[in-house]
């Protein structure tokens, strides 16, 4: 008993401090740094709200419009055969400033300065002038973390807008991504526009992503193409967050009627 008390007198405070530090660290890890991110948002608030680089945005926006046009044109033939189409009503998005980047080099993430107070949820889609950026992976009251398309762990089902050949895309750092085709001999060439396909569970179909930069048809097991993402991921300052609903990118079919309750986000497939 005496030995125990002496030990406590000597090491008591240290033990208590270490325990406190360890439990704080575990708490932060379990809550995915929620409090830290909130503090960060509070501190960086005076520096937010820089107007975005207008010229870069303008060219990116023009590119996006062009891509959407190509996407629509190539789908036109298909649409004409069907009856009962209406153009989808555009869901309203939340515009959020980018307040931080990833806290580590191995993850391609971005921190936005809006959170679930503004209606952002895990799984929401993040767009910027230029196209798809990523999806929300973590939300606190005033911040949200975006897993970028260029992260190697994000997988998206994509399609070539011109020839409708399908494949999936995985990130490859910076603003590049690799597309793997499902077919052995896809009809694809440099400059083709790539957008999300209807097979994608995490993203609505028809959102522009980027252009084909190079194609490697001899790659085994499946042909691959390198895609240049059109969204300015490296110097992103603003992004728009939309809830994940099917009518974001594609006009919706009225017949057969789609039940409105079906608008719940698609089941989470681990990316």
């Amino acid at each position, binding site marked *: 008993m005496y030995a125990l008390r002496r030990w406590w007198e000597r090491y008591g405070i240290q033990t208590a401090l270490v325990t406190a530090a*360890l439990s704080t*660290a575990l708490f*932060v*890890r379990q809550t995915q740094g929620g409090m830290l991110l909130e503090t960060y948002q509070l*501190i960086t608030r005076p520096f937010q709200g820089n107007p975005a680089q207008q010229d870069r945005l303008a060219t990116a926006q023009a590119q996006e419009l062009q891509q959407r046009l190509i996407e629509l044109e190539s789908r036109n033939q298909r649409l004409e055969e069907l009856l009962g189409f209406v153009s989808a009503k555009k869901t309203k998005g939340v515009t959020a400033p980018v307040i931080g980047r990833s806290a*580590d080099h191995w*993850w391609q*993430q971005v921190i936005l300065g809006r959170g679930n107070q503004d209606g952002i949820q895990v799984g929401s889609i993040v767009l910027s002038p230029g196209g798809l950026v990523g999806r929300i992976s973590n939300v606190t009251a005033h911040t949200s973390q975006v897993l970028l398309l260029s992260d190697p762990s994000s997988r998206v089902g994509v399609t070539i807008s011109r020839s409708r050949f399908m494949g999936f895309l995985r990130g490859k750092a910076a603003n590049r991504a690799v597309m793997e085709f499902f077919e052995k001999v896809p009809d694809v060439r440099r400059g083709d526009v790539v957008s999300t396909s209807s097979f994608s569970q995490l993203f609505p179909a028809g959102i522009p992503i980027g252009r084909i930069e190079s194609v490697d048809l001899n790659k085994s097991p499946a042909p691959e193409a390198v895609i240049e993402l059109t969204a300015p991921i490296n110097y992103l300052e603003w992004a728009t967050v939309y809830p994940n609903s099917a009518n974001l990118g594609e006009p919706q079919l009225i017949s057969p009627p789609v039940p409105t309750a079906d608008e719940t986000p698609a089941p989470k497939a681990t990316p």
Partner: protein
Amino acid sequence: MNMALEDLFDRHPISRPLVNWGVTVISVLMCLLVLPMRLPGMELAGIGPNWLLIWVVAWSVKRTMFQGALAGLILGLLQDGMTSPSPTHALSLTLIGVLTARLQKQRYIEEDFISVALIVFGMAVLAETVTAIQFSLQGGRSLMEIWTYHQFVALSSAILSSLWAPVVYFPLNRWWERMGLIEQV
């Protein structure tokens, strides 16, 4: 400033560990909050310095292996909270805490910024290698991609971290030395 602190410590002995730990905790918090920032001069091809690694090295240089490991574990868990918990950062930072303490710098190497910067350089490369190994074992990414990216990340992170190491090391070391001196008296 000095006098005021001494006075406070003399009058309330309990305040000394409190102030000491308060400064330590605040320094960790600052390192954490600076992690997502990419200020001009702190960035090389989109990669910033690894502030937590610098902190762990600064802490462990003059401490025991156990203390180094503990600091690495705690800061690793904190960084997990900021990014993604798998693979964990706790492993690489714990290893770095132990190794830095093991170096016994005060016995073999002269005390200056250059040697600390060199230690940080080596440890940053080591930390990224540990992470790359974790990714390789975890699967999901192709090995070739991981290790090509590793070369790029390890080099940029090591260069930047070692350049910025004195900013963390110098004030913290001064503070801990002073607290140590006061405690000895």
